[in-house]
């Protein structure tokens, strides 16, 4: 193939518009280490920054900066806290040990406040839970049939994400979320396995303060082929058909 054609694909790829066979071929070509395509891709990405610059600039609402600064201040004060998607790393066990040792050392230091001790204890407990959760995920993943479904946050909580480990042979699933808002009293999230356009209830759950849950799906009808999964907000007892706003959606 004429190399100019690869460069053409690099440009359309940078624009995010390459698809079909063009996309497959180009990604393979790029992975083979073509430096001129790599360079063209970068140059085009730089050129494209002109497009957002071409709009009349809008002033961002001042509240956003204040919210962000408050949010990152909270993060910086908890540097040990592990964030998703760290579930699958094996480093957490070591992290728990470090936190536990810290607890002992701090115990000898009279200037340490009770609150600090309590905070660290909670952290150790949380890390312990996280280790257990990881082990469950790893056990589930050991089956080669398992597929990975990414669920994206929708309008009510765009920052939320979900991941479903789905075993289409056993019709078994393990669902993990992060960033879902806390549920109001009397409400819970309901997970749906969707076969074509038919949603089948896959259980209700609530989330922790970080909007996280690790949830094992109940047995689902084996006669159906599920290709999509969604989460809606429903009455806490669950409903047979979705009725509330949809928070997450993803396809196999």
């Amino acid at each position, binding site marked *: 193939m004429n190399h100019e054609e690869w460069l053409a694909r690099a440009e359309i790829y940078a624009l*995010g518009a390459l698809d079909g066979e063009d996309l497959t071929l180009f990604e393979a070509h790029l992975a083979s280490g073509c430096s001129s395509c790599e360079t063209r891709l970068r140059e085009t*990405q730089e050129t494209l920054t002109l497009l957002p610059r071409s709009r009349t600039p809008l002033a961002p609402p001042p509240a956003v900066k204040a919210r962000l*600064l408050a949010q990152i201040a909270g993060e910086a004060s908890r540097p040990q806290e592990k964030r998703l998607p760290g579930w699958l790393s094996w480093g957490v066990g070591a992290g728990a040990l470090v936190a536990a040792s810290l607890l002992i050392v701090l115990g000898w230091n009279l200037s340490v406040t009770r609150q600090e001790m309590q905070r660290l204890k909670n952290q150790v407990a949380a890390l312990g839970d996280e280790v257990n959760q990881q082990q469950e995920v790893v056990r589930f993943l050991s089956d080669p049939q398992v597929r990975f479904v990414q669920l*994206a946050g929708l309008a009510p909580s765009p920052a939320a994400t979900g991941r479903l480990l789905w075993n289409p042979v056993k019709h078994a699933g393990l669902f993990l979320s992060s960033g879902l808002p806390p549920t109001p009293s009397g409400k819970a999230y309901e997970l749906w396995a969707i076969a074509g356009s038919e949603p089948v209830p896959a259980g209700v759950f609530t989330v922790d303060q970080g909007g996280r849950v690790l949830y094992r799906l109940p047995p689902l009808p084996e006669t159906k082929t599920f290709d999509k999964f969604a989460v809606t907000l429903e009455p806490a007892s669950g409903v047979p058909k979705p009725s509330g706003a949809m928070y997450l959606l993803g396809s196999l």
Partner: protein
Amino acid sequence: MSADLKDDPVQLIQQVAGGDREAFGRLYDRYASLVFTFAVRLLNRPSEAEDLLQEVFLQVWRQARTYRQDRGSPEAWITMITRSRAIDKLRSIRRIEKSLTSLENAPGVKSGGTVETVSEESELNLTVRGALAELPEVQRRVLELAYFEGLTQSDIAARLGEPLGTVKTRMRAGLERLRGFLGAKAKGELS
């Protein structure tokens, strides 16, 4: 705008990677308007653009250490984060609208708020806008459908009822003109 243009954005990102919140504030001041303007264009909903702005900068804070200067300018990095998060949202909204229309209460279009424009525009923005206006309409249209709407080349061909080859040619011609403009601008700055 209060952004200090004398700050080197690459250095700011490095400081942010080291947990410097003050540098993060300056980086925000420099790019927030660009990200917000882009987000409003992408999502067409000011309230969601506001959420996106927050998400983008949170990602910048968390991933600053993964930024590599040799892989692109800070502006390209930040606009790519913005675009990719917005397109993900747009695609999931479209998927719902397409395949789950039977579900009641699917997330609807949020009512839009009003947004203020920045009073002083940078000279660069004005010049870029001029250059874009000179782009033939058919070229600008395919670039905008891809870049702002997240459509692929085949989607665009179907949408416009044009052969795929024509769409590709127009995209490349549009990009070529933009690149020519950038090159001219760089030369102008040097001279």
